[in-house]
């Protein structure tokens, strides 16, 4: 039995130095529910330190939270890496940290990287610079995440920076991506046609760094359950599952 889940698979928290201070767990959960979202993925840059807080904040709210991370590959391509469990993402985080250059975060340049608890209280600042390319190649990221039971989505491929298509010219043949993500800046049907991306899974998400943007661009997932395997099937249009990207509120089911 399939059900519709309104999902935003690309959401930052106060851990991302470029995010607004309002991207705290309880605020994210509250706003997501106000906007009718059933599903969000927490995807901070190269770190999953705030995933547990958002998962806990969402408990009992009806919002399903996918543990994730937006990894920057050695090619400077941003990839959403999504999992079903906190244990998986924390295991993956160790592998990412091992290939993260050991540089201090320059708060005056990049911003503050805040780790918080489920009540939005600060726990500590992350001192390592997260906004930087890891030493992991795109292929390594996809291989490792797939091995761990997760899925990969190439982030905002329509954007001029940190994009798979901009940086590497085209989608490498045979790369096991679940989908390509489009930003809020484009119409999915129009862009997909213009860029010749028919045949790829397409999702759209907010890449929200501020609460105002949360869920505006989003995807309707017709799936049996909000799991990464089901989302992969939906993106690829397999087994009756499907994913319908929406650029803004009102264009889909969200009112």
């Amino acid at each position: 039995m399939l059900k519709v889940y309104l999902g935003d698979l690309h959401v930052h928290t106060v851990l991302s130095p470029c995010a607004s201070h309002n991207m705290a767990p309880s605020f994210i959960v509250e706003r997501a529910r106000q906007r009718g979202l059933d599903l969000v993925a927490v995807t901070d840059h190269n770190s999953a330190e705030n995933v547990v807080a958002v998962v806990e904040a969402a408990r009992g709210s009806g919002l399903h939270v996918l543990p994730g991370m937006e990894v920057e590959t050695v090619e400077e391509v941003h990839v959403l890496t999504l999992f079903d469990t906190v244990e998986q993402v924390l295991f993956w985080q160790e592998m990412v940290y091992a290939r993260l250059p050991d540089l201090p975060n320059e708060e005056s340049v990049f911003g503050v990287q805040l780790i918080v608890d489920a009540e939005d209280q600060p726990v500590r600042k992350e001192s390592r610079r997260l906004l930087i390319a890891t030493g992991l190649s795109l292929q390594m990221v996809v291989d490792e995440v797939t091995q761990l039971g997760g899925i990969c989505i190439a982030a905002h491929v329509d954007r001029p920076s940190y994009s798979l298509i901009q940086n590497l010219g085209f989608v490498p043949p045979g790369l096991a991506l679940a989908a390509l993500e489009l930003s809020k800046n484009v119409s999915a049907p129009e862009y997909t046609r213009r860029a010749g991306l028919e045949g790829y899974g397409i999702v759209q998400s907010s890449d929200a760094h501020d609460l105002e943007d949360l869920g505006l661009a989003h995807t309707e997932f017709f799936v049996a359950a909000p799991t990464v395997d089901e989302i992969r099937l939906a993106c690829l249009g397999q087994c009756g599952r499907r994913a319908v990207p929406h650029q803004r509120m009102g264009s889909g089911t969200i009112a």
Partner: protein
Amino acid sequence: MRLKEIAKQLDASVVSAPDGLANEVSGGYVGDLLSVVMARAKQGNLWVTVHAHPNIVAVATLVGLSGIIVAEGTVVDPATIKRATEEGVTILTSAHSSFNVVASLVRMGLEGPF
């Protein structure tokens, strides 16, 4: 000017398709956004990049580049070398910065496409 002479003057290593050292080089191009390289580099150009991903081979084939110099001491992926060998795309590597490699190419008389 042939690629062989350029490789020698740069003291660059050849990691794939040495037959291509006989290629005539029409000019130079430098860049790391492959979408831009595909759109702007010209046939016969020698391309300087820091990318080691297999997609660089496809770009070289598509544009008809005379070769690729992977600069900055970047280690080329084995998958890239395999594909370049299959496609006959000559890849050189240099420990020097992209800037210094390009400066050397300019001193040898190479020009850009526009």
